[in-house]
């Protein structure tokens, strides 16, 4: 298995290299000069030229590319053109914010989506099944903007249950250590703050979870339906096993692999940052970070941001693949 992981990680190198190159070329193909954008409309030509020189944009593209690549190989993700800070330092708080939200959202999506899918398949063609699947259909096509604002209106304004935006109560801010606030508050023993952090996670978490939840529910249902027709399900029932355990033990374990694949993909997508959700809920995550970078033509941030996100995406898929082996002994990695 170690050699399998090694091989997968080796395969990762050309993929990431290729991606760095494509992103590098693509963002340079978008019109707009970073120096001009950073300096604003008032800037003089000299200022733009000076900025270009500092940013290294006066050099041929291949020199820029190899410089960037050389930096990457030494673990240097470059420096933001706009804030002049190392991308590696800047990116972590954003990534942490996104990770916290994404994990929370995927947790909601898994708990609700998987169970809804299982129960739907168990009671196929029942009212529960119909309603759940209609909701799932609505869920995948739900406009997040609308859902988010509706959630804020209902839960924050009408009922005053939850906060509208942000990660924490700004009047009592969390002292960021790891930037994963759930962990930070626990480390510091601030359970009152932990509670606030969780409250702030709920609305954006649900908004972000909606689509994955619907996709997971549908995938679980169809996978379960297929498994429920299997002979070993009949065997389990013929033993006198309760339907609940037949469904949750025998059927679900067999149905879980395609569901896991979907969860992995969705997780990867969520970790890439959800610009809409992060915008509506003022979540300082990686999606907005990269999006802003694109608007500012902050090349190093765009490149390294995408690189980091892609790396995480691939790693999650690797983890999912390894999980297959844990679940199903027929799958061997060597």
């Amino acid at each position, binding site marked *: 298995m170690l*050699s399998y992981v*090694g*091989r997968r990680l080796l395969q990762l190198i050309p993929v990431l290299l290729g991606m760095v190159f494509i992103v590098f070329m693509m963002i340079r193909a978008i019109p707009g000069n970073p120096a001009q954008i950073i300096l604003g409309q008032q800037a003089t030509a000299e200022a733009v030229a000076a900025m270009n020189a500092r940013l290294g944009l006066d050099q041929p593209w291949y020199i820029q590319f190899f410089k960037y690549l050389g930096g990457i190989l030494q673990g240097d993700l470059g420096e933001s053109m706009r804030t002049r800070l190392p991308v590696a330092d800047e990116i972590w708080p954003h990534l942490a914010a996104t990770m916290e939200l994404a994990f929370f959202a995927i947790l909601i999506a898994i708990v609700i989506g998987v169970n809804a899918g299982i129960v739907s398949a168990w009671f196929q063609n029942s009212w529960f099944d119909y309603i759940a699947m209609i909701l799932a259909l609505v869920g995948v096509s739900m406009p997040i903007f609308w859902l988010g604002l509706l959630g804020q209106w209902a839960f924050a304004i009408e009922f005053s249950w939850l906060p509208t935006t942000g990660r924490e109560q700004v009047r009592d801010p969390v002292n960021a250590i790891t930037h994963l606030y759930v962990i930070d508050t626990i480390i510091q023993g601030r359970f009152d703050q932990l509670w606030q952090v969780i409250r702030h996670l709920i609305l954006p978490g649900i908004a972000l979870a909606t689509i994955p939840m619907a996709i997971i529910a549908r995938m679980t249902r169809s996978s379960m339906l297929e498994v429920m027709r299997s002979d070993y399900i009949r065997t389990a029932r013929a033993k006198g096993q309760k339907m609940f355990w037949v469904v949750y033990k025998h059927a679900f374990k067999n149905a879980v692999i395609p569901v896991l694949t979907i969860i992995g993909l969705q997780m990867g997508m969520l970790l890439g940052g959800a610009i809409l959700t992060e915008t509506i809920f003022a979540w300082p995550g990686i999606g907005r970070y990269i999006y802003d970078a694109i608007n500012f033509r902050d090349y190093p941030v765009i490149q390294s941001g995408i690189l980091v996100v892609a790396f995480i995406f691939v790693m999650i898929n690797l983890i999912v693949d390894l999980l297959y082996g844990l679940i199903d002994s027929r799958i061997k990695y*060597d």
Partner: protein
Amino acid sequence: MSTTPLLKVKNLKKHFPIRKGMFGKTVGHVKAVDDVSFFVNEGETLGIVGESGCGKSTTGRVLMRLLEPTEGEIEFDGKALTSLSLEEMRKTRRDIQMVFQDPYASLNPRHTIGKILEEPLIVHGISDSKERKKKVNEFLEIVGLNAYHAKRYPHQFSGGQRQRIGIARALMTNPKLIIADEPVSALDVSIQAQVLNLMQDLQKEFNLTYIFIAHDLGVVRHISDRVAVMYLGKMVEVADSEQLYEKPLHPYTQALLSAVPVPDPDFQKEQIIIEGDIPNPADPPTGCTFHTRCPFKMDICTKVTPQLTEQSTGHSVACHLYESQVDNDIKQLEGSL
């Protein structure tokens, strides 16, 4: 029935590599077909029997070069098939057709029966459109269906009817040889009899040569002139049908025959139940591959692979029991079984 061989197979091998490790290194081979030689005379039916994993289906596919043989020669109608180019092979396939076990899986569900039957003619550039339609209708009638069936789709037919369609398709190009791979094993008993009868009728009418691959010994006996028994990629016994069933020589053949349930509660047979399972084809036993289950196993069996040798006219067996140095006492056992 002529005695000129239509098909001659010599030392045919098909090995599938087993890949493993970081760079997909080949660590071994599954010897699906391992040094098999036989012939089929024009107009006769050669039955190939054996249990799962014995290589009988692979043999059928290699003969048509649907799978490329690893080694060996195949001579069909005077032509060495193994040395033909792919294009020449494609042309030659009009003379060799296949009928498969699962007729449903082998018929394109989106095409009408008419289109399915016409396709081999188009592929081989036979006749014009009008002629082809006529021929389709003619063959539908021949296999016991009606011309109006041409407009229907495969799912509208029962299993037996689908197999008739499969047979009609095989016949469309006027082939000389038909390789039928378990053509009746998916069918109900009453339908199986219909299809077997149809195949026999067609053989007479079109002077067809059959290679009939099946695991059902009753069916094989019924339809075959000669029978070959395969075990783990090797042919262990070949004989005239009558000879093989009445006087089986190889212990495996004997066990196989005795294992078949007979639809007669009064029939008293001496059952030899061989122990154990068929070994993993990826890791076959040394020497005689059957020695792990053979009730007459000798020392030599674990070391030396027995060769298929003729014991009497047309009856060959690959077993150390029948080699000259073997004790007469053991040879006599054959009589009592």
